[in-house]
């Protein structure tokens, strides 16, 4: 009768399930102890040294049970793999950001003549530049890029000093930032979060199903 009552009450049913699980586990553990703790020479007189020495052995190794413990890896391979993994997560280079005031007062960024062009006036450069009118600007082109219609062959270094208040241009002066690369391997927290999310989804589905059933019953 008690069992019937327990089966009827969901809470008790769950409690019964816990208890039965523990009981099954305990019984299985007990069976394991009994079956594994055997003595292959039960009742043998202790005086038999052959039986004693043979009986303490875990048994002869079978071929099927052999698995290599250590995998042979060459040192070069290890280095390669390390580099491959590390290549995915490289440290960020510190951003080379020059304050605008420094840009205005500093010398041109490059002294190589092939990267330098005659000073241009503001009208000839980008519109909306905050640099005051008449300031000499220097374009710095990437290597290999044609100077295009900005004209002419590269001139020699035209002074380029900060003497006249002219400065370097921010164009091309700030290297692009290295994008933030996520870690290569998911962290345990990520796994835990994923499992928690799955559990919540399952719980929500179950709850939804049961509530629908209840509402159907209520309708009926």
């Amino acid at each position, binding site marked *: 009768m008690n069992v019937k009552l327990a089966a009827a009450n*969901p809470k008790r049913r769950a409690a019964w399930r816990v208890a039965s699980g523990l009981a099954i*586990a305990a019984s299985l553990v007990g069976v394991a102890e009994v079956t594994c703790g055997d*003595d292959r020479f039960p009742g043998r007189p202790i005086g038999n040294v*052959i039986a*004693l020495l043979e*009986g303490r*052995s*875990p048994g*002869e190794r079978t071929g099927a049970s052999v698995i290599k413990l250590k995998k*042979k890896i060459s040192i070069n391979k290890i280095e390669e793999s390390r580099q491959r993994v590390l290549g995915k997560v490289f440290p960020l280079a510190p951003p080379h950001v020059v304050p605008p005031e420094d840009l205005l007062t500093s010398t041109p960024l490059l002294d190589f003549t092939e990267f330098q062009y005659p000073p241009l006036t503001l009208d000839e450069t980008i519109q909306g530049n905050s640099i005051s009118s008449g300031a000499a600007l220097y374009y710095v082109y990437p290597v290999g890029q044609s100077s295009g219609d900005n004209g002419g062959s590269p001139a020699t270094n035209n002074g380029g000093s900060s003497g006249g208040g002219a400065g370097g241009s921010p164009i091309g002066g700030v290297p692009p930032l290295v994008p933030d690369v996520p870690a290569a391997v998911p962290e345990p927290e990520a796994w835990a979060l994923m499992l928690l999310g799955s559990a919540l989804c399952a719980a929500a589905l179950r709850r939804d199903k049961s509530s629908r059933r209840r509402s159907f019953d209520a309708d009926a």
Partner: protein
Amino acid sequence: MLMLRLLSFGVMGAGGLAAAFTITQLPIPSLGAKAAPDLSARSLDLAKPRMFLSEEARQDAAKAELLPPDTRSVLNLPSRMRYGSWVWDDSDIAQGTLTIYVDLRRQLLSAFRGNHEIGTAVILYGTDTFSTPVGRFRVMAKMKTHRSSTYDAAMPYTLRLTSDGVSIHGSDVHGSRATHGCVGVPLDFARRLFSEAKVGTKVEIVRSKAPDLSQFG
């Protein structure tokens, strides 16, 4: 309610897993000696921890290559040892020369001091491809923390036996495992063996003959 049901299923699953693990993994301690991780000697909890051999028993055991020929006494272990288990008992044995005896067939290593067995452990040994050499050796070198450059594996408490690297060292001794020729012993046992052994200690590795067990059953 839902959580309770989930919990109940979880308990059942955990119980099943625990039982399966117990069956497959086999609890390790034999006679309680495994529970002593320190280096102090610990006697077996037996009324008669040591068995002294008669001349006839000594000859029988030596003939089957189960023991060195001049063994005087062995540890009295009435039950089977399991992977990872070991026993060390030198409580009644005076100081003397250590010798190490390894039987690959029985997967056992025994340490003797002055012809008395003071310790034994279940071992791992080499696969058929990387077989453990059989014969008589001497400890060439002792290295407490060594790492195999060939296999990039830790070899704690190494007692080196051959010039090509075959050693006795600490391992994670489980069933279904083998080495590349070394003799692996449980780590705590390896520590004791390392503290006892010296460069020049004799080591004999044999593959004993299986005795006719029908006479016992």
